[in-house]
């Protein structure tokens, strides 16, 4: 028999009923992004919106997996079920990957209220956040209360994936070489909570101060980003972290129907459109965009007009295929 391309409604139904094998299978299907994905996502659509998605990212060596492990424990003690998607990079040369994040979460293997899935980035080159969003949707439909999206690094892909989360946590640890520089500007922009892990290390206090100093330079918004100190091994600070997550999730939902209604889908769309437009403008070889650039350069048109003209041009090209 060839690869199972026809998904009977059975899979979605089983997933919604909480069957682990169905969720696992659905994630595999969604990862491959085959022709059946649309149907699957459609089936689960009415059941979304319950879970909060919490993103953990940060440089390697910060102890993210150990922290996630402690976070899972804290959530479980609060009676919440947790699903984790741990993403690691695939080798750009071979396409393979060694996925070892769940090693640190071994204590939860036999807990039926915890589901852990190791994912490789698979060279999606920009489609990774779409994949992450879909996996989160599946976990949401499977009725998990909290979904953890764990990624390593702080580069462009990680920033984009982090935007799929409702609450974004950036983890660092003292003495990782660059200290706060390891938290690059991009990820800092969208972080909701900053965590300094390995709080037992002597430099921890200094890292916390440095981060607070950086945040003070920001214009105040509707959410004050807290800098929390944790020790993932003895669980210090986990209670505060969990409380902060709750508070942030609540404020996000409170923003109104815009956020509540397909928050991450909206963000995914915004991200994808932006990338498409950027890619087109920078790589466009046709004369049409060049002309707009020239006009803008020569100040024949203002920026607002240039934007409008560009979008028109792109729209035309899309129509014409």
């Amino acid at each position, binding site marked *: 028999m060839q690869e199972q391309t026809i998904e009977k409604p059975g899979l979605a139904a089983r997933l919604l009923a909480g069957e682990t094998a169905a969720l696992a299978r659905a994630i595999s299907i969604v990862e491959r992004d085959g022709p059946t994905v649309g149907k699957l996502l459609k089936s689960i659509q009415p059941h979304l919106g319950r879970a909060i998605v919490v993103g953990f990212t940060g440089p390697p*060596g910060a102890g993210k997996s150990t922290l996630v492990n402690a976070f899972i424990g804290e959530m479980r003690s609060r009676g919440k079920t947790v699903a984790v998607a741990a993403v690691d990079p695939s080798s750009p040369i071979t396409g393979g990957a*060694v*996925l*070892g994040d769940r*090693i*640190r979460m*071994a204590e939860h293997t036999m807990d039926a209220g915890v589901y852990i899935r190791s994912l490789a980035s698979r060279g999606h080159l920009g489609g990774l956040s779409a994949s992450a969003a879909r996996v989160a949707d599946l976990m949401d439909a499977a009725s998990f209360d909290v979904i953890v999206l764990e990624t390593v690094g702080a580069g462009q892909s990680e920033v984009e994936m982090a935007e799929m989360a409702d609450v974004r946590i950036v983890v660092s640890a003292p003495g990782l070489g660059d200290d706060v520089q390891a938290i690059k500007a991009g990820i800092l922009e969208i972080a909701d909570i900053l965590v300094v892990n390995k709080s037992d290390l002597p430099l921890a206090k200094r890292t916390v101060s440095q981060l607070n100093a950086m945040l003070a330079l920001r214009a105040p918004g509707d959410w004050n980003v807290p800098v929390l100190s944790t020790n993932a*091994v003895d669980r210090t600070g986990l209670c505060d972290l969990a409380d902060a997550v709750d508070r942030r999730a609540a404020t996000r939902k409170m923003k109104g129907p815009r956020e509540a209604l397909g928050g991450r889908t909206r963000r995914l769309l915004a991200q994808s459109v932006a990338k498409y437009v950027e890619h087109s403008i920078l790589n466009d070889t046709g004369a049409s965009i060049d002309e707009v650039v020239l006009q803008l350069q020569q100040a024949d048109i203002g920026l607002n007009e240039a934007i409008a003209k560009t979008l028109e041009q792109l729209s035309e090209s899309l129509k014409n295929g």
Partner: protein
Amino acid sequence: MNKIDKPAKSTGPVAQQAASDAWQQNYDAMIGEDKTVKNRSGIKVDPLYWPADDPDGDYGDKLGFPGTDPMTRGIYPTMHRGRTWSQRQLIGLGRPEDFNARIKKILASGASALSMIPCNSVYRGIDCDEVEPEILGTCGTILNTEEDMDLSLADIPIDKISIGLNDPSPFTMLAQMLVVAEKRGIDWKDVTGTSNQSDYISHFVANHMFYRLSLTGARRMLLDTATYLAEHVPNWNAFSIVGQHMQQAGATPAQAMGLTLSTAIQYAEDCKARGMDPEKFLERFTFFFDISISFFEEVAKFRAGRRIWNNLVTERFGVTNPRAKRFKFHAQTSGCDLTRQQPLNNIARVTVQAMAGILGGLQSMHTDGYDEVLSTPTEDSAKIAVSTQNILKHEAHLCDVIDPLGGSFYVESLTDAMEAEILSVIAQIDAEGGMFKAVESGFVQEMIGASALEFQDQVDSGEQIVVGVNAFQEDEDASARPILKRPPKEHMARQVENLKEIKAARDPDVLSKALGDLRKAAQSEDLNIFAAEIDAVRAGATMGEIVKVLRDELGFGQPLVVA
């Protein structure tokens, strides 16, 4: 008598250089394709060595005499000529009484010391009544209680024989043995031996099987035990610092030595921080190494190790007591070099490895059985392993001369090169903040993993030939391979029953108090855990019960597995 006039010698430096150049020319002309040769540690090996390789060679500085700085040639003035190495063969069999029977045979056949290895379940810290029956007792002796230890050592004079216990944190085997000695009326001052594998760092890094307590918990446990032993069992070596695991996990010989010495530095610093005197506690440091089949490299590794340790303890700890500078080590021939294919060839391999260890100046040795790669060794193969040592000792006369390879142009050059390589590893660990931090962060694990993969690639590509595996293969009759008899299921079932009976016969109040005291000791930095542990054994606590309490209090965690 006719005297033949020999031509006048022309051995001045100019003439020698000319001769060397001439040889080089001839060599280049005849050699054809000459590949660069590197040993396992990555050191380039030349076709020939001669005095010009070490023009400033200072015998006193670099070699000296056995038993004095810098100890390169040996740690005792007499070395094997005075007292040969201990034949310390690992023994571990299912039931205590089986172990006892085999020990007696081995001692009768010439071994002078023993090394007890318990069942893997003991390493996991669980009593036999909680283990899957299929795998119980297949790799070592079940030692859950003081009674088990007593049976294992029935009729063995504990005060006359040096005993190596393969007994990682929290050293339940040692606690059991001390209680047995006490009951037999033996003064603990007469108990000699070593806590093999007390090196928790090596277990965290490389042999996870021995990993029983969290890294920080094991740190405290080792220090408490060492402190207790220094006072009550002064002739026992608390520290057995292990290079074997790291080398078997893939570290190169130079890396294994460097990492082991770094671990020793870490323990010495920890002891010093506790207020212990280096001049005293360093006397109780012993080492345990792998011997690979890279013959000259291993000899050089041990010689360099001796020299480095001598200099290191002088420089870093200001030690003057000569007994505290001795690099005492036990070594085991490496099972990683042995093959499943044509297993009898392994006898030759073990012989070469053993020779390297002997010529490297070890104090105690275990030689592997030729069927090591097939299963737990049989009695016959264990006998051959001991005979191998006897042949090398008595027929090849390897004990007659101290450091016989000393002075070889190659060996001295290689010793220097290995020393440089080892020191660079130590420097890297220093830069990471010491061995404890370096293993917490995964730095050491990555280093070892990279070397393992590199070596595997060399074997896979055929660059490193392994006879019978990637060259000189033969079709083999699988039925010719020895079949290991596993302990009969009834024996193991009986062992489990025994345990249940022993547990039932204890005074529950006494036991409960002892375990409570053990817990308190673990909770308080001011109490000595090992002292409380011995009391617990006296009260009848089993290994599993002790380990459980200590894991609760000191943590278990997981060894950091770097994927």
